[in-house]
């Protein structure tokens, strides 16, 4: 049997917790931190002093409190000094961002990803190029404490290998390793699935703040998903869990890139919608989906029918998730924002007829608050994970 945690472990834990409060909640007064963390004032003072001397936070007098008495100092994250690199590999776009502690996007680069002939080497080269450009513009006293990427494909939880990303042509691609090598930051690049990082982003900074049970659905060309159950991201045995896009909703339906038929992603994805609406391939991605929703709103019958069909399948997929997980919130992100808003009557009608009343009565259906940035924000949170777990160790390793 193991003895209780040592004083050192407790201190490390408290440092991480305090930094996390400031990182997620923004500038917070010491008095407020005392309340939230349930520690006494002198402990909070000692912890802040330690984080301040490490250069992670800074203390300031508040501007105005409107109350009598000596104001409590406000602890702010050193956003301009401590940052991470976050990357997002979507089907049609590549994004790189420098994100400061506290979640501030300090700098970003974006490029269109061509659908043909742009495999892993090209993606890695483009992202590394962005990182170099952004690095050149940083001040010398800044420190990069992590790097992470979101990818639309199944990703191993520790090795950064993209096992299967049919929409971007990745298969058993050692993406994390390659990007780590090219960046040469002395830091490993963590890689996460777009749905999984999206749910973390919405839960920490988006529409799902405070939610302990939520499901995030991310629409790109396919459908990714992330499921949080009782505050924990559902990973499964090897971290591949939450692939809601490959839930079969229509046995014998459309062929899916995964080899199966009638997956949610095959019935609701971009290809199905475009085909049903009779649209050609010159406009793709979000713009194409928007154009169809717009046309349906203006009375285009074919677009309207296509949205209804797709909305019905989406409703069926979501209904299954509601019955299984009884979530507090379902968040529609990526192109599913537009799709849900354009077909909400269909989606909710299907949910209302196919779920148990008890499972849906307190459910809230929401669109992503972070919009297109959900994946990049989520990747940044993934990159911050280590420094929030053990702030001083990470800094000393880099220092």
């Amino acid at each position, binding site marked *: 049997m193991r003895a209780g945690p040592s004083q050192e472990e407790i201190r490390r834990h408290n440092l991480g917790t305090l930094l996390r409060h400031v990182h997620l909640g923004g500038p917070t007064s010491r008095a407020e931190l005392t309340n939230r963390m349930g520690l006494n004032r002198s402990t909070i003072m000692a912890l802040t002093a330690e984080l301040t001397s490490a250069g992670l936070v800074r203390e300031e007098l508040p501007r105005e409190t409107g109350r009598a008495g000596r104001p409590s100092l406000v602890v702010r994250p050193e956003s301009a000094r401590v940052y991470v690199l976050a990357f997002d590999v979507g089907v049609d776009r590549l994004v790189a961002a420098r994100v400061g502690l506290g979640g501030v996007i300090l700098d970003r680069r974006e490029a269109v990803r061509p659908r043909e002939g742009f495999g892993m080497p090209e993606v890695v080269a483009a992202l590394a190029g962005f990182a170099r450009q952004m690095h050149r513009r940083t001040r010398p006293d800044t420190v990069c404490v992590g790097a992470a990427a979101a990818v639309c494909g199944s990703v191993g939880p520790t090795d950064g290998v993209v096992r299967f990303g049919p929409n971007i042509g990745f298969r058993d691609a050692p993406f994390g390793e390659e990007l780590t090598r090219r960046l040469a930051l002395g830091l490993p690049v963590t890689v996460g699935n777009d749905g999984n990082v999206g749910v973390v982003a919405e839960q920490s900074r988006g529409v799902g703040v405070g939610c302990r049970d939520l499901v995030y659905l991310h629409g790109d060309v396919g459908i990714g998903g992330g499921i949080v159950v009782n505050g924990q991201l559902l990973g499964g045995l090897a971290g591949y869990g939450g692939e809601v896009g490959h839930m079969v909703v229509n046995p014998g339906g459309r062929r899916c890139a995964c080899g199966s038929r009638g997956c949610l992603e095959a019935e609701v994805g971009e290809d199905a919608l475009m085909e049903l609406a009779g649209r050609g391939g010159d406009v793709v991605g979000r713009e194409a989906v928007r154009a169809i929703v717009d046309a349906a709103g203006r009375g285009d019958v074919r677009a309207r029918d296509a949205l209804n069909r797709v909305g019905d399948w989406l409703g069926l997929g979501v209904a299954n998730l509601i019955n299984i997980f009884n979530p507090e919130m379902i968040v529609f992100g990526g192109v599913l924002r537009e799709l849900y808003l354009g077909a909400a009557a269909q989606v909710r009608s299907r949910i209302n007829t196919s779920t148990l009343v008890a499972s849906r009565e307190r459910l809230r*259906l929401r669109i992503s608050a972070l919009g297109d940035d959900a994946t990049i924000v989520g990747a940044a949170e993934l990159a911050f994970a280590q420094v929030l777990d053990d702030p001083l160790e990470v800094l000393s390793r880099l220092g």
Partner: protein
Amino acid sequence: MSQAPVLELRGIDKSFGPVQVLHDVAFSVHPGEVTALVGDNGAGKSTLVKCIGGIHPIDSGEYFFEGEKVHVGGPRDAAALGVEIVYQDLALCDNLDIVQNMFLGRERRSGLVLDEATMEELAARTLESLSVRTVTSLRQRVSSLSGGQRQTVAIAKAVLWNSKVVILDEPTAALGVAQTAQVLDLVRRLADKGLAVVLISHNMNDVFAVSDRIAALYLGRMAAQVKTSEVTHSQVVELITAGRSGELGLQNGNGATP
């Protein structure tokens, strides 16, 4: 979620001369929820809203606000209670800037002059609390804004006055996809902040996307007020067009009182 209604109407009748527009209408609005008010053209939606806003006096019936019976004799009474209405035509002045519009008729003064700094700060704080990032300058003239931005300003204007009930008349009519998404997101956020929101809309997707309850008017009668999680699209369409759908709605389809 189901808190006591902040605003409740019972047995509202309203006639214009010989035409009875509202018959024995009951309507309730809950805090933290979006209540969609739907109905065909001429069903009485606008009249009902104008009765709530004090523009039309009601002939008979009871008006409760936060559980207390109140008398609303005019728009100022409604505004004093915390009821704000955003009309379809928005009532914004094109030649004024955003701050001037938000404080129109209720300007802050410091001594004899207008207190521009405070007004600008309050306007900025309101827009920020609604996470509105689409407006770049508060001193922009309203004429230079897009449809979605105008709608946003009109809604923010309603929220500025610590209102408890915000009524939106067709806020997404004539907007593009991206702007509709913006406005619907804002509507939802208002309710998530604890306000009671009434959304009048003909677009069933908008209604299903953001509402918690749906109230359907049919020929001046409240056909049904149901939870959005309990009905389907076709049921709502039947309530609007026929006043009933299966067990729901007016049991006598011609609109006569049962």
